[in-house]
């Protein structure tokens, strides 16, 4: 069951096997948490958004028209929860003091460099407009195809390509500014 395709797992859950939903969690929770963290910039808010999204996904699982495309369907639900959280917070830019701390001085040089690079990247990402941040994260951090992104966001592939382009330009400029 652990390696069963998504469609089979969904059928089991809809058949009344609640515990089979745990397979969905093991498969997709980490990447959904990563996505929400990059969108919201706050691990607690990211956890809340993903938890709310996954509970909603369970309750509306029968409305997933194509269980073979469960992944973009889950992303869509979590993306909507992230939008709700952002709307409540009324902050399009994540404050820099919410960014994670840079590595401790006792860490190796490579770890320090990685931590600094992550801090700069997060700072640059936080300054993107939400739609461009979403497009960049889905494409380059989460690795979705443009067709999957269209299913998640409801935008056309052309629009998404433009958002990713603009996001790259803004990120490149922000990284240059922070260097």
């Amino acid at each position: 069951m652990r390696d069963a395709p998504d469609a089979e797992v969904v059928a089991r859950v809809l058949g009344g096997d609640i515990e089979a939903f745990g397979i969905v969690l093991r498969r997709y929770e980490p990447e959904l948490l990563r996505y929400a963290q990059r969108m919201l910039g706050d691990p607690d808010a990211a956890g809340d958004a993903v938890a709310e999204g996954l509970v909603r996904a369970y309750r509306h699982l029968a409305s997933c028209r194509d269980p073979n495309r469960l992944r973009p369907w889950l992303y869509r639900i979590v993306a909507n929860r992230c939008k709700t959280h952002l709307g409540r917070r009324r902050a399009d830019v994540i404050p820099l003091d919410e960014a994670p701390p840079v590595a401790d001085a006792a860490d190796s040089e490579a770890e320090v460099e990685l931590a600094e690079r992550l801090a700069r990247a997060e700072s640059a990402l936080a300054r993107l407009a939400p739609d461009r941040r979403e497009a960049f994260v889905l494409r380059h951090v989460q690795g979705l195809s443009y067709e999957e992104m269209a299913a998640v966001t409801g935008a056309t592939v052309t629009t998404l390509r433009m958002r990713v382009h603009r996001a790259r330009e803004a990120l490149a400029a922000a990284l240059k500014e922070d260097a």
Partner: protein
Amino acid sequence: MSTLDPRIHQALEGEIPRETLPPDLQRAVEELERATAALRSGPLPASVADRVMTEIRRPAPTLAARLGSWMATPRALTVHIRPLWTLAAALLAGLVLLTAREPAPVLSAEEGIADFVGRFPGARTVEVAGSFNDWRPGSLALRDEDHDGVWRGSLVLPTGQHQYMFLVDGERWVTDPLAGRYVDDGYGRQNALLIVRRTGHR
């Protein structure tokens, strides 16, 4: 106008090999790829699996429980309506009041009725989320009593301006095409704007 050489975009999309680029463009590609790799790494938020499984094992709240929770929660909403839509909303409100089984709400001088109407044939649920309910789905559900695909609901709101969207089947956000006024929501979509005007005592 693009500030990055188009070949950088092509390399990042995997359409051309990075090695074919001049050194300065290769460095730009590498800078972005290093940033992306960093964003893919780093500690994840704590797992929510236990929390989710605990919640789904609990029986879902009944409609009565959800309605009770909604009615017990204080709400504030401001709505802008054009004169034409004010007339349409007043006529619709009149129709709703004439055909409503329950008694009309008692309004203060600083409140009005906002009527929400949307055409979603085939939808299973239609909700309204907006600035008046913290954009929380599940707190204002519309009804399609005639099963004709037209969903309706009303809300007593303080006078002023509000933003909202429809949420169809719990997953699809739709801008109200009849709203007449909109604001950009920062996600490439538009929120509808409503205006609630004073209606006086009833």
